[in-house]
C-alpha cells in the first residue's frame, strides 16, 4: 500500500490494551484521510447517543495521505470526536511535527476509548504502544507536558500532543495542543481529559512510500512555487490578523457580543499596526512554505502568537481595546488550553449578562474590563467561581442562568461564532447555520463568496445554497487530503489537481469525479452522524440577535437578516444538497454516496 500504512491503532484505556486494525482500502478511497478518515472512524466507534465525556466516546487522531510527502502545507492531522460543547461532531485540525510523527509511528489513525484509572500518557514508538504514568504531568500546561515528556524520552525523536489544565478540568471548549498549535474547536481537549489521558507521544521511523516519488517531487516543486505567489501574500506578509481592520471597514467585525459590527479601536488592534509596532517573528507549520503564523512582542517581555480569530474574540468581541491585554489573554488561553474563540464568545455573553444585571457574581466582567478578563480565563480553566459556569460554554451557561439570556448567547449548536458578522456576510450566515460542528469558519469557507463580488453580501438572494454546499465539499476535500486552506486559491482546477496528487501518492486510479464524490460523502457522513446523535431541523439556526436586531454601526448599518431570509436560504441549501426539505439526508443521497446501512 502506498501513502498509508493500512492499519490504525485502537487503544482502550480501560483495559490498557492496544489493538491493531486494518484501515481498509475501501475506507481510505472513500474517505481519503484526515477529517474524512476521522469521521468514518468516529461513526464506527461511537455508540449511538454516547455521552461526549463518557469513556465510550472515541477520540480519533487521523493522519492523511499527503502528510509526510513533503508537499507544502500538508503536515496536518485531524482530531475527531463527539463534542461536549455541541453534542454533535467535533472535527478539528492541527499541524506540524506531531502530524508527521503519526505517520512515522506507523499509524493511519489512533482511536482512543475508555478511561484510565489515573492520569496516563500514551506512548507509541515503532508500532509498540504503552501507557505511562502521567500524574507528574497533571496540572501542567500542554507545552510544559510536551517538553517534560520529550525530556524524559530523551534520544527518541518523540512528538507530543497534550491537554492543559482546561482539558483536565473538562472545560467544554478545551483544546489539544502540540508545538504551540491547537486542535481548537469543539472541546476535543475535554474529551481527552475525560479519559485521564494527558498526552499522546509518538515516534518511529516507519516511512510511507509513495507510488510515484518522482511525480510527487515534481508536483511538490510546482506547488511550492505557487505557494509563494500573490494568492498567499496576505498570509506570508501579514498573517490572518490582516482581517481585523478590513472587517471593521466592511461592517463585518463582530464587537461587544455582536452588538455592533465595527470597533472603535480596530486600528489600534489591527494586524497592520501590530506588525508595524510589535512584530517579533514569523513562524510556520512543518513542511510549509507560506508560514502564516505571527508572533508579536508583549510589553511584559516575551512574545505571543496571534491569529485573527483570537484577536477578534478577545479584543472587539469583549470590547477590549488594549492590545497588551489582548496579547496577555491569548497567552493565558494558550497556556491553559482553551479555544480562544469560545473563550471570548462565552466571556462576551457573561459581560452582557452582567451589564443587564443578571450575573451578580461576574467577577467584574463588563465590556472592555481587561483585568476581569485576565482573571476570568484562569477561573474558567480551573472551574473556579463564575468560571465554573462559563467553562460549559455560552449555551449551557445561558440555559443554567435563564432569564432569556440564551437570546444573546452567540452560538450555533453550542459552538460560539467566529469573527464573521452573519448579517453583513449572508452566504457566511447560511454556512454558520448549517455547519455540522456548529458556528464554524473552517470546515467551510462560505465567506469567500461574500468577499468575491459574485453575490451581494448584504442580500440573501439565491444561489446561496449551492455556494455553501460547494464550499463545504471543497473544505472536506482539503481537510481530508490534508492541504492547508490557505493554499486553496493556488489551484487552477482543484479537484483535478488534488486527485492527481492523491493518485501519485497512493497509486490509485483516482480522478476529479471520485474526489468530488468523496468530499460530498465526507460532509454527508458528518451530517448523518449528527442526525444519529439527535439533530433536529431547529438546530440549523442562528442566534436570535442575528435574526432580530439590525446592524447598529458601519457601512452596513441598518442591515438585517430576517427569519424568512434564513428559512429561504436553508431551503435553497437543502435543495442544492438534494436532501429532504427539513434538512435530513435523503435515502437516495445516502445510496448514491454508498452510505446507506
Amino acid at each position: 500500500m502506498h501513502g498509508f500504512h493500512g492499519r490504525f491503532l485502537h487503544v482502550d484505556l480501560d483495559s490498557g490494551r492496544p489493538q491493531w486494525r486494518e484501515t481498509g482500502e475501501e475506507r481510505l478511497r472513500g474517505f481519503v484521510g484526515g477529517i474524512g478518515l476521522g469521521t468514518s472512524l468516529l461513526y464506527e466507534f461511537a455508540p449511538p447517543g454516547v455521552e461526549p465525556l463518557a469513556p465510550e466516546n472515541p477520540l480519533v487522531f487521523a493522519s492523511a495521505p499527503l502528510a509526510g510527502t513533503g508537499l507544502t502545507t500538508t503536515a496536518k492531522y485531524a482530531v475527531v470526536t463527539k463534542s461536549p460543547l455541541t453534542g454533535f461532531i467535533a472535527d478539528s485540525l492541527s499541524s506540524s511535527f506531531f502530524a508527521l510523527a503519526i505517520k512515522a509511528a506507523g499509524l493511519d489513525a489512533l482511536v482512543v476509548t475508555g478511561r484510565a484509572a489515573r492520569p496516563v500518557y500514551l506512548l507509541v514508538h515503532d508500532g509498540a504502544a504503552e501507557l505511562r504514568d502521567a500524574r507528574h504531568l497533571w496540572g501542567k500546561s500542554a507545552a510544559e507536558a510536551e517538553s517534560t515528556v520529550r525530556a524524559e524520552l530523551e534520544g527518541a525523536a518523540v512528538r507530543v500532543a497534550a491537554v492543559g489544565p482546561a482539558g483536565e478540568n473538562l472545560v467544554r471548549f478545551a483544546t489539544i495542543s502540540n508545538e504551540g498549535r491547537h486542535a481548537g474547536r469543539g472541546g476535543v481537549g475535554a474529551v481527552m481529559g475525560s479519559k485521564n489521558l494527558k498526552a499522546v507521544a509518538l515516534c518511529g521511523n516507519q516511512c510511507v512510500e509513495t507510488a510515484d516519488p518522482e511525480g510527487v517531487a515534481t508536483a511538490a516543486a510546482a506547488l511550492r512555487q505557487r505557494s509563494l505567489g500573490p494568492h498567499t501574500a496576505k498570509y506570508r506578509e501579514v498573517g490572518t490578523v490582516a482581517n481585523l481592520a478590513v472587517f471593521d471597514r466592511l461592517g463585518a467585525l463582530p464587537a461587544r457580543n455582536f452588538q455592533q459590527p465595527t470597533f472603535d479601536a480596530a486600528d489600534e488592534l489591527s494586524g497592520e499596526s501590530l506588525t508595524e509596532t510589535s512584530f517579533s517573528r514569523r513562524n510556520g507549520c512543518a513542511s510549509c512554505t507560506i508560514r502564516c503564523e505571527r508572533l508579536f512582542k508583549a510589553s511584559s517581555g516575551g512574545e505571543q502568537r496571534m491569529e485573527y480569530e483570537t484577536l477578534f474574540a478577545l479584543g472587539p468581541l469583549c470590547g477590549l481595546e488594549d492590545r497588551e491585554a489582548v496579547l496577555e489573554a491569548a497567552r493565558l488561553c494558550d497556556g491553559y488550553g482553551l479555544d480562544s474563540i469560545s473563550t471570548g464568545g462565552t466571556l462576551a455573553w457573561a459581560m452582557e449578562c452582567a451589564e443587564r444585571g443578571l450575573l451578580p457574581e461576574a467577577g467584574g466582567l463588563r465590556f472592555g474590563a481587561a483585568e476581569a478578563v485576565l482573571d476570568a480565563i484562569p477561573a474558567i480553566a480551573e472551574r473556579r467561581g463564575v468560571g465554573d459556569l462559563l467553562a460549559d460554554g455560552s449555551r449551557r451557561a445561558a440555559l443554567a442562568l435563564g432569564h432569556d439570556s440564551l437570546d444573546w448567547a452567540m452560538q450555533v449548536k453550542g459552538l460560539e461564532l467566529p469573527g464573521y458578522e452573519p448579517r453583513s456576510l449572508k452566504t457566511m450566515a447560511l454556512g454558520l447555520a448549517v455547519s455540522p460542528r456548529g458556528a464554524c469558519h473552517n470546515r467551510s469557507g462560505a465567506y469567500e463568496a461574500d468577499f468575491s463580488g459574485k453575490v451581494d453580501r448584504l442580500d440573501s438572494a439565491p444561489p446561496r445554497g449551492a455556494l455553501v454546499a460547494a464550499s463545504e465539499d471543497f473544505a472536506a476535500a482539503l481537510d481530508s487530503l490534508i492541504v492547508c486552506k490557505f493554499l486553496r486559491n493556488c489551484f487552477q482546477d482543484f479537484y483535478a489537481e488534488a486527485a492527481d496528487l492523491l493518485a501519485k501518492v497512493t497509486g490509485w486510479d483516482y480522478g476529479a469525479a471520485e474526489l468530488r464524490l468523496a468530499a460530498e460523502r465526507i460532509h454527508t457522513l458528518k451530517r448523518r452522524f449528527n442526525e444519529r446523535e439527535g439533530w433536529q431541523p431547529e438546530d440549523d439556526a442562528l442566534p436570535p440577535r442575528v435574526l432580530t436586531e439590525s446592524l447598529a454601526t458601519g457601512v452596513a448599518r441598518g442591515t438585517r437578516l430576517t427569519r424568512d431570509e434564513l428559512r429561504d436560504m436553508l431551503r435553497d441549501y437543502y435543495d442544492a444538497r438534494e436532501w429532504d426539505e427539513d434538512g435530513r439526508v435523503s435515502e437516495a443521497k445516502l445510496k448514491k454516496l454508498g452510505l446507506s446501512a
Partner: protein
Amino acid sequence: MTGESDTVGSAVVLAGGKSSRMGRPKAMLPFGEEPLVALVVRGLAAVFPDVVVVAAPGQELPELPATLVRDEVAYQGPVGGIRYGLEACRSAAAFVTSCDVPFLDLSLVSHLAARLPDHDVVVPHWEGRLQPLHAVYRRSVLPLLERQLQRGELRPVFLYDKVRTLTLAEDEVRALDPDGWSFFNMNTPEDYERALARWRETPASAPGGGAGRCEVELFGVARLRARTGRVSVELPREATLAHVWSALALKLPALVGPVLTETADGLTAGHVCNLNGRDFVRDGSRRVAPGDRVLLMSSDAGG
C-alpha cells in the same frame, strides 16, 4: 538593472516654446480664471511631488507650485528644455510635457510612468508619430542630451536610438485615452477657441480641472508595502478604477508588482478593491466617482 530607481516622482513642463502663430504667449492663455500653465501645473502637482517649469529668460509667469528654471541659452528647441528640466528634477525620472496641453489625462501619464522599469525613455505613439513632449525620461540620459545639443541635434528622437526606449503602441494609448485629447496642443487662435469650447463643456477633463478626489484606504500587504494606510487620488471626469490604480502606481510605486500589475492596469491575483464598503471589484472599467471610498485589500478573507 539592479539598484535602479523606477520612481517617476517629477514632472517637467516646458513653458518657453514659441507662440508665433498664436500671437500671444501660450502659457498665459486664460482658461477660466487661471492661465493655462497654472492649470497644467496644478493637475500634475496632484500626482507628482516635484514639478519643474522651464521658462524662457524673462518670460512672464504666474505664481506656480513648482520649481522654476530658465532656459538660459537662446531657444534650443525641446531638447534644451528637456535637459534643463531634468537637471532640476529631484527624482530619478520625470514626465515631460509642453505647457499648452489643456487635456492631459493623468491616468495615461501614470501608465507611462508605470512602464518605466527596464527602460530609459517611455514615449507614446499617436497618429503615427512619437510624442516626445508627452513622455517619461530618466535623468540618466542627461549626458547624452548634452552631447546632442553640442552637436546641434535638436530633435528628441535622436536620443531614442541610443538608450532603452519603450515606444507605446497607439492601441495601448487608446485604452486610456480613446480620442487622444492628451496630445491636443494649441498653435493657432482657432485651436485655442476649440480647446476653450471643449473645456467649458467638460472642465473636469482638464488636468486639475477637479472632477474631485477619492480616498483610497490600503490594508494588509498593500499598507505594509506602501508604508501608508490612506491616500487621496485626483480623479479625471468619468474616472474608472483603472485611473485610480494608475494614480496609485505613481504615488506609491512600491505597490507595483506585489499589489498592482507591472503595467498598473490591474490588481495582482489575491487582491481586490471594495467600493464604499459595498461592492467588491477587480474590473478596471468600473466607474469611480468623487468622494468614493476605495478599499484595497486581500481577496482572501480566511482567518
